[in-house]
């Protein structure tokens, strides 16, 4: 599969082929600009490849009509480096928002949200606003929001990029726990410590090409 952005001199991803099994935990690593974030965008159907196909949950995303995209995204959770929380909503409201905008009732939110906040270790902090939480706690809220709908896949784009090493480890433990519930986790990072500690599958990308694909790998 190849993806070239308009105006780019070379493809962001050049003839890349990767297959990820259900329930796997995969790191995509590589220097900035290597094309690893493009993988997240392709999986989210935010961009489409110029050549080749992207298949997610046995659905061909490449040919998916854009009106089907919202429903498709409900099976995918997403976490980013910058958390992307709503500043004027509490932790609880941020997570509940994700449920309510896809048509879940308030009653469902009242039942599910405290559960998932407990799971990510934020029990008792439901009514704090993002600015009253530490970076690690904010990222936990983001993970809770991504996971509250019980997605099949969790995509994480440098989730530890803004966090100190200790907090990063805690977030990784959380992602690991989510992975153990059967959720496939795809994480893009250049945090070598974390990759080395986790010992999971590592796919290394350089200049848009896969240079390494190793089970139980380290950050080279």
């Amino acid at each position, binding site marked *: 599969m190849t993806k070239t952005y308009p105006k780019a001199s070379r493809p962001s991803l050049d003839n890349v082929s990767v297959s990820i099994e259900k329930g796997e935990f995969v790191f995509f690593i590589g220097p900035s600009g290597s094309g690893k974030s493009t993988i997240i965008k392709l999986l*989210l159907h935010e961009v489409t490849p110029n050549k080749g196909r992207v298949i997610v949950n046995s659905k061909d995303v490449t040919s998916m009509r*854009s*009106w089907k*995209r*919202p*429903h*498709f*995204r*409900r099976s*995918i959770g*997403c976490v980013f480096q910058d958390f*992307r929380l*709503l*500043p004027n909503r509490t932790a609880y409201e941020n997570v509940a*928002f*994700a449920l*309510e*905008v*896809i*048509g879940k*009732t*308030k009653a469902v939110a009242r039942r599910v949200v405290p559960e998932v906040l407990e799971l990510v270790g934020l029990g008792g902090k439901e009514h704090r606003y993002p600015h009253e939480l530490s970076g690690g706690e904010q990222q936990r809220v983001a993970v809770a*929001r991504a996971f509250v*709908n019980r997605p099949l896949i969790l995509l994480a784009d440098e989730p530890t990029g803004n966090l100190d090493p200790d907090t990063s480890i805690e977030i990784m433990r959380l992602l690991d726990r989510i992975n153990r519930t059967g959720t496939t986790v795809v994480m893009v990072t250049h945090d070598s410590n974390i990759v080395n500690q986790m010992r999971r599958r590592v796919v290394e990308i350089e200049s848009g090409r896969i240079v390494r694909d190793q089970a139980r790998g380290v950050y080279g």
Partner: protein
Amino acid sequence: MRVKYVLSEVLVGLWRNVTMTIAMIITLAVSLTMLGVSGLVYSKVDDMKDLYYKNIQVSIFLKGEVTEQERTDLEAKLKGDSLVKEVIYVDKAEAYKRFQEMYQDAPDLVSAVKPDQLPESFRLTLVNPEQYKGIYDQYKGEAGVDEIVDQSRLLDKIFDLFGAVQNIALAGAIAMAIAALLLVANTIQVAAYSKRREVAVMKLVGASNWFIQAPFVLEAVVAGLIGSVVALAALIGLKFFLFDGSLSALQGLFSPVSWGDIFLIFPVMAGVGAVVSAVTGWITLRFYLRV
């Protein structure tokens, strides 16, 4: 719950940018008022045309030296004409009587004119008043005919004036509509910008497109509906103060604008206001809220 969410978002959105909301409503209201005026003039002119043209007459004045023979020939010809519905002959005495009645306020003028000086004439009612031209062409050269006067030509001037009023109102409505639509587009851009974080999250977690867009489009629709209510109030005010007030002296001239006319035009204004705002809003979102 989703309906409640969307409605509360709409109200919050209108309130957040309240100065723009007011500007948007005022321009929409002025535009819709002008549209309403134009519509009322249009329907009234049709009524008035029916009313006036039905009673309109063409007068064929005869020369002073017209002979008996010429007059009877002409009368026979007019009576046989398929364009003519009714022919009334007005002799000098009859004409003088009418003249006296018409100028009874000016006795000097009446006394200065002798019955003999007034021309005889035929007063024609036409089957279709707009076919005056045919009558004119046909009888102008006829022996004994002095002049043909058509009242409808005067009326045409009046109706041209009404047509001009209608066109000006329509042009004003369009100009104001353009201003209103730009304001709607701008308001929605501002709203989309101030809610960009929410929109990003909604897209990410898979909220449906209509759910993301509905609050913005409805904001424009609500503004359009409020604008049309204000426009209705403006029309009521116009009728009350202008038409029934300062212009009431001219009432006999116009066919009256009833409250029914005004309330009948309201759904048109409301519909135009709502649909045009919605379409503008939706198109704006296509550009500023790529989903």
